[in-house]
């Protein structure tokens, strides 16, 4: 049938590209993770050994890997709630009938999302400087001692959380705003007829209706946060004391700094397993949402 042949013809270029430049590398990465491919093997493929699950076992025994997991989880568990909270607050404000100049605010609050991450990381590196940075200057004006944001192991990741929240809250804000605008007005009218205050309306009308979307957005944001790389690369190089090494940063160093591609591929697959877990979670929630 002409239409059917056309169908295959139309999808062929994209499918071939995806097959060659995505599927094949993924399979190759899995295969590499079972070998000890390193610079010796790069020089002479005869130096390659098949090591089975040794790379994965090595990961489990390597403290830096666990540190990277811990750092990444900290970023996810602290950064995501803060980010969603900021997005929700901004969306609620923008949705309010009392707000003026909405178009301007929407653009202003969204602007950081489209900026280049490397560029803003460089800017923030200076804003966070211990002596000459404006953040500490502002904190000093309310009586807080200067914090060594990027130099102190305890504060480096929180600094990155701060940058991340600033950069990304606009994204979820737009999505949540669309969700808020979809809530039927008569629900609010009914509530205010019963004398509910602003806060009660929020608790009993807005949040319950928005809950499924909030959950979905949270899971997607968690998945994205798990892939933190550029900020540590530009601002801290994984330090201080390896406290900003994330899973992806660890993979990058294993793979492209030391060229231990075997163990780096193993890390990549661990990352994949986590992403897979997040997606399953997301699908479970989506099915639950549709059932409602």
């Amino acid at each position, binding site marked *: 049938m002409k239409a059917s042949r056309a169908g295959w013809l139309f*999808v062929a270029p994209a499918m071939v590209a995806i097959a060659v430049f995505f599927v094949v*590398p993924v399979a190759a990465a899995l295969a590499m993770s079972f070998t000890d491919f390193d610079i010796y093997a790069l020089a002479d493929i005869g130096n390659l050994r098949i090591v089975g699950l040794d790379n994965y076992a090595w990961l489990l025994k390597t403290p830096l890997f666990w540190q990277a997991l811990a750092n990444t989880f900290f970023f996810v568990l602290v950064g995501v709630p803060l980010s969603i909270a900021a997005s929700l607050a901004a969306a609620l404000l923008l949705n309010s009938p009392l707000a003026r100049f909405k178009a301007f605010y929407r653009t202003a609050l969204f602007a950081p999302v489209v900026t280049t991450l*490397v*560029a803003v990381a460089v800017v923030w590196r200076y804003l966070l400087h211990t002596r000459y940075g404006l953040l500490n200057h502002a904190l000093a004006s309310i009586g807080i001692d200067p914090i060594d944001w990027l130099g102190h192991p305890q504060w480096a990741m929180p600094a990155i959380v701060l940058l991340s929240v600033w950069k990304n809250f606009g994204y979820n804000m*737009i999505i949540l705003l669309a969700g808020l605008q979809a809530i039927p007005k008569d629900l609010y009218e009914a509530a205010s007829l019963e004398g509910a205050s602003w806060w009660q309306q929020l608790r009993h009308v807005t949040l319950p209706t928005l809950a499924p979307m909030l959950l979905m957005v949270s899971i997607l944001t968690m998945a994205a946060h798990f892939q933190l790389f550029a900020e540590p*690369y530009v601002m801290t190089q994984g330090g201080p004391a390896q406290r900003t090494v994330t899973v992806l940063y660890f993979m990058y160093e294993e793979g492209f700094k030391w060229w231990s591609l075997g163990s780096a591929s193993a890390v990549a697959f661990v990352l994949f397993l986590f992403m897979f877990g997040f997606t399953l979670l997301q699908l479970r929630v989506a099915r639950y949402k549709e059932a409602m």
Partner: protein
Amino acid sequence: MKQRWSVLAVNATLAVIAALTLFPLLWMVSASLMASGEASTFPPPLVPRAPTLANYRELFASAGIGRQVINSLLVSVGATLLSLAFNLTAGYAFAKLRFAGRERLFRTLLGALVIPAQVTMMPLFLMLKQMGLVNSYAGALVPWLASVFGIFLVRQYTLSIPDEIIEAARMDGAGEGRIFIAVVLPLLKPVVVTLSVLTFLGAWNDFMWPLIVLSDRDLQTLPVALAGLSREHVQDTELMMAGAVVTVLPVLLLFLALQRHYMRGLLIGSVKG
């Protein structure tokens, strides 16, 4: 009155949040106009004493960043064109052309979204090395050839086109290719713009892959060059801010001009069917 206080509260909060959000970007511009070393004085200044374009001059003259601006432009435009070429046809086919295995193939593709792109980077690098494409524009463009998200976006939008229009054209005897170009594409103009904007911004801001595949300074895109400069010139705050401005300004302007289309893409993409 309660009403007036509420209005004040809401708008004042919005204003404060907007100010805090825009502040780093404004400071970036301000510091880029400061004299060398001015930003690292105590107390840190907010505005330059005597605005100067010296940092930009040095950026273009000695650091040669003009080259990287061109590289970013070439790669972003190339990525956009390639993405359109590959994804428009595929998205349309998944939406409107019936062929065996269509739904199953599409679901498999969606499944592939689970796999983070970073998994592919190392083997892809070795593969491109075999093809001789490392350290070239083509190497940087390869990941943009086809994207599952792009196909998804086009498909979602195309589903909203009534089947009757296409059927009518078929009954008139037009071939599938002609139908696509003459009938469907004009209707797809909004998603074409959206996909273009999203791809251009994505390619311009992309960091990890260009970092890996482009090693020659002369081929690097702006984010990679900026990251490299920031390690060399860690002391030169003002110069780095000028570099940041050059990197961020084009995409900010593009976004401001085509906001509507960008937001549409964002919303279609996140509200998955």
